[in-house]
Structure formats: structure tokens, C-alpha cells
């Protein structure tokens, strides 16, 4: 108790001292401004018209929980056709690109690690092209899309098993 009360005393004293150190000046007169002429030329305010204010809306692309957060389309082994589970991804990004003509994307096709680097690059391209064609069918302009391939060079999952390979048979949508 003694310690607390002495602390309170110290704090109170400090507060009083700091208040004293910045005295309020009461002797200074307020500045005089001549505004009469200006006020006369201003038309009377329209009190019926409401001026709207827009808050800066969140770009759905930046919403980590939105549908656009999913940017990967997966493919079956030896397949270059967009699967059912990939169609919503294609549709969601197509809708966004349709509304946001200034945005453009890279579609990066990928393959699993088996086989030659160049052949896999060409196979990854087929996956990227499949996504590109699906998007242009949905009305996205060609100029907004570039389909490219990373082949087997940038695996998402390491490991030489079917689980890793399935992760790597993929096309990713990358906004420029």
C-alpha cells in the first residue's frame, strides 16, 4: 500500500508540474479576418443534394479468402484438359478479367518431373493453352492473357511419388 500511494504521489506531482510548464496564453487577441466580400459572392448552399463518398473497396484479387485466391488448375496424368474442379477457378478469374480490362495475367503451365526438360516444357505449354482457351471462350481478351510454360523446372511439390507429381501437373494464374 505504501508503495502504491507513493507512486500515485509521484505521478500526480509529475502531472501538475507538466501542466505548469505549458501555461495557456490568454492575453493574445484572436486574429481578425476580413471575409465579408467573399461570402456575398458564394451562392447559397444546396441543402438537398447529397454528395456521395466511396470508401476504397477491397480489390477481390487481394482478398485472401475470396474465390480469386485459388489460382491453380490441376490436370490428370498425361492430360491437357481442364478438369471439373478447375472450371470454377477459370470462371472466377475470367469474370474478374472481364471487369478489369487493365489487368493481365501469365498462365504458367507445369508438369511432373518425369522425362525430358524440353518435351515437358512443351507439355506444360499445352496445359497453359488449355486454360487460355477456356478463358477466351468466356470472353477474356487475348491481350490480357499470356500462356507460358515452366515445364518440370519449378515443381510446387518435391518428391518422386504420385502425390507430388499430381501437385505439379498444374497451371498457375499469375497477375502481372
Amino acid at each position, binding site marked *: 500500500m505504501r508503495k502504491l500511494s507513493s507512486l500515485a504521489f509521484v505521478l500526480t506531482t509529475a502531472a501538475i508540474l507538466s501542466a505548469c510548464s505549458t501555461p495557456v496564453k490568454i492575453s493574445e487577441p484572436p486574429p481578425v479576418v476580413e471575409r465579408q466580400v467573399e461570402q456575398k459572392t458564394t451562392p447559397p448552399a444546396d441543402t438537398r443534394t447529397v454528395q456521395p463518398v466511396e470508401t476504397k473497396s477491397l480489390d477481390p484479387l487481394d482478398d485472401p479468402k475470396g474465390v480469386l485466391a485459388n489460382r491453380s488448375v490441376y490436370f490428370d496424368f498425361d492430360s491437357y484438359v481442364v478438369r471439373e474442379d478447375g472450371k470454377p477457378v477459370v470462371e472466377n478469374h475470367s469474370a474478374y478479367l472481364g471487369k478489369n480490362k487493365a489487368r493481365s495475367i501469365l498462365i504458367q503451365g507445369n508438369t511432373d518431373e518425369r*522425362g525430358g526438360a524440353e518435351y515437358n516444357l512443351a507439355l506444360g505449354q499445352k496445359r497453359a493453352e488449355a486454360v487460355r482457351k477456356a478463358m477466351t471462350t468466356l470472353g477474356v481478351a487475348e491481350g490480357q492473357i499470356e500462356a507460358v510454360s515452366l515445364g518440370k523446372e519449378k515443381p510446387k511439390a518435391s518428391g518422386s511419388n504420385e502425390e507430388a507429381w499430381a501437385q505439379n501437373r498444374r497451371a498457375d494464374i499469375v497477375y502481372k
Partner: protein
Amino acid sequence: MYTMKKLNQVWLAAGLAAGLTVALCGTAQAQMRIEISGVGSNQIPVAVAGFADEAIAPQQISAIIKADLERSGAFKLIDAGVITSMNNIDYAGWKAKGADALVIGTVAKAASGDYEVRYKLLDTVKQTELSQLGLSRAPQYTRLTAHTIADDVFLKLTGVRGAFSTRISYVKEYDKRHYELLVADADGEDEQMALRSNEPIISPSWSPDGTKVAYVSFEQKKPVVYIQNLITRARTVVANEKGSNSSPAWSPAGNKLAVSLSKDGHTQIYTVNADGSNLRRVSNSNGIDSEAQFSPDGSSIYFMSDRSGGPQIYRMGVDGSDPKRITFSGNYNISPRISADGKTLAYISRRDGNFQLYTLDLASGQEQRLSDSTDDQYPSFAPNGRYIMYATQAGGRKSLAVVSVDGRVKQRLTTQAGNIKEPTWGPFMQ
């Protein structure tokens, strides 16, 4: 040029037939470990003596010559000690020791700082001098001097130009975030870095004059084809069309390249001038056409295409005319490479799930499997056509391997850190 950190190295020669492992020698400036297995069918017995005063040079010249000749599989090396005098050679004595040929030499330091190396190749049977060379080079080219002598021995004794003084380029990959394009002597020594990137580098290809390497870099989030001058560091974008740009191959004259582009919606072969101008589509199929390689006479292009289903190797005119299928065995044949004489096609074939190196004699149609591993890729002929280097994998590590075209001699080159892949064997240099 940036020189790589020196690593310890052990050279091993394993005579498969004899089941022996013999430590040959240890050299400084070593980056790679080389294992040799198998021997040539008709080894020439040759003695390589230590060169007089060779200890004054940065590297032991006779040791490098011996290692080159041993690695080739074409010679049986006979111990010769050091021979200090180039005169009064006891031909009969060397013949009695089993040597058909003897290599001797001297090393001296000139006032300029260069090392003057004199060498002689002697025929102990005919008791005559087969060849001699006098080479004067700056200290940093001591290894090149040794390789030049080994090339001369190889030529004089086998009738085929040696490729020991040529260089190789390959990609080294560290943990998928750090990639380097490296250049080294054909034996993996004297490794120098040409390019470092955080993104993949694939498909390197030497220019015919040996001063440039074309490759595919992913540094722009997509594959783009570059040419890099190894001497000036100048980089030229050869192909950066919309879509993917890959698989550069030089024309024999070095003035243009074939590349694979996806700009028309699927991967097809184009030709382009080395400065990036005059891009022309060459192949015309509904499938994938890629991995072009010019024939040595420049009149045709070998390439991989899956127009018939699986990938197979085809040949067409440089203008895309008259495409003809070349490979028919197996349902996955990729990465065609053509020997300098235009007679042998090397490629990777998938059989029973394994990717292995094969050659096809184009005249007879005879196919030969040259590797017995499971994941071999990216073959490259030595400029003398006698050896093929390729990328292989064992125990989760990627390394390089070399095999003689008769399949008898094999070497494996591994490094202590990182994975090495995508080798390209450089041309003969002047």
C-alpha cells in the same frame, strides 16, 4: 572470369574387367570426381614419362596427359617414371616394358613468365619420332597445354582428333532457388561461372565458334532464349515472343538458330538470325514440334514431334519441307543429337519406364543402348564423335556421364555440392 572454389578430388579408374580400383593421381584445382569404368576394345600400350622440370609449372603436365589418355579408354598406361633427357632414348628397353609408344617432354619458364613445354611422341616399335610440339603459354593455360599434348597423342595413335582440350558447359542447380551456367574443361576441371540466376536455366548450346552459349533462362517468369558471349559477357535476346521460347540450336555456320516457340498457340520450330531478326516458322504440325538440331551440312533439321501420338524423332528440310519419321522403336524418343559426321543419331528413349541413351546408325538402322541407368537426359556428342556426354541421376543426385559410342568406356562426373545437368560439349577451338 569467376573461378569456382577449389574442392578436393580423387580420380578413380576402375577396370571393370579386372574388377580393380586404382587411384591414379590427385591434382590441384579440382571440382569434380570422375569415375571411369570399362576399357576400349583395343587398347594401345603407351608410357607417359614425367616431364623434365615440370614441378615448376602450376600443374603437373604429365599427370594431366595420363589422366586424359586413361579416361579415353583407348590406352593402356605403362609406368615410366621421369625422363629428364629427350635424347638417347632406349627404344628397345621401353618396348620390352610393353610400351608401343612413349611420351616425353620438358618444361622451362621463359623470361615473359610463359611456360615453354616441348614434347615428343616416340614409336618404340619403329624406333622413330611420331610427333613433336613446342608450346609456349601463360601459366594459367598450363592445363590447356597438357590437354593439347594429349589431343596430339590421341590423333597420332588412333587417327582420330582428340577432344581433351575442348570444353563443356552445363547447369548446376542448388535447392531450386539458385542456378548457375558453368563452363569447364572436358574433364570437368577449371570450372568457371558464366551466369548465375535465381530462376531455372535450361538447354545450353555452344556456338560453332566456341565463344558463345545459347540457353533458355526463366528470369522473366517465362522461358526466353538468350545468347551469351562468354568473353565479353554480352547477352542477346534471341527469342522473346508471346508465350514460351526454348530449345535453341545453332546452324553449322553459326549465323542462325532454330528455336521452339508457342506464339502460334502450340510449340513449333522456327529459325531466327543470331541477332534475333528474321524469325520464320519452319515446322507445321498440329502437335508439339521441338528440340531441333541442324544436320552438320546445314541442309536438314532433326527434331522431336508428337504428331503421331508419343514423341518421336523426325527429319525435315531447313525450310520445313518433307518431314520424315526416323525413330520407330519404343513410344517415347526425345532429344535428338547428330554426330559431326552426320552418320549417328543419339537420343533418349523411354523403355519400361527408364529413360536411357540410345544411338541409331542412320545408314543401317541399327539401334544401340548406351546407358543402363534409369533417368538419363540431354545427350551431347564430343566434337570428334567418339563420346557422348549426358545427364544422369543416381541416389537422388544429378551428375554427368560420358560414354564412348561403342558403349565400352563409361565415366561419371559428380560434384560435392548441387546437382549438375544439361551438358553441352563445345566445339574444337583453333
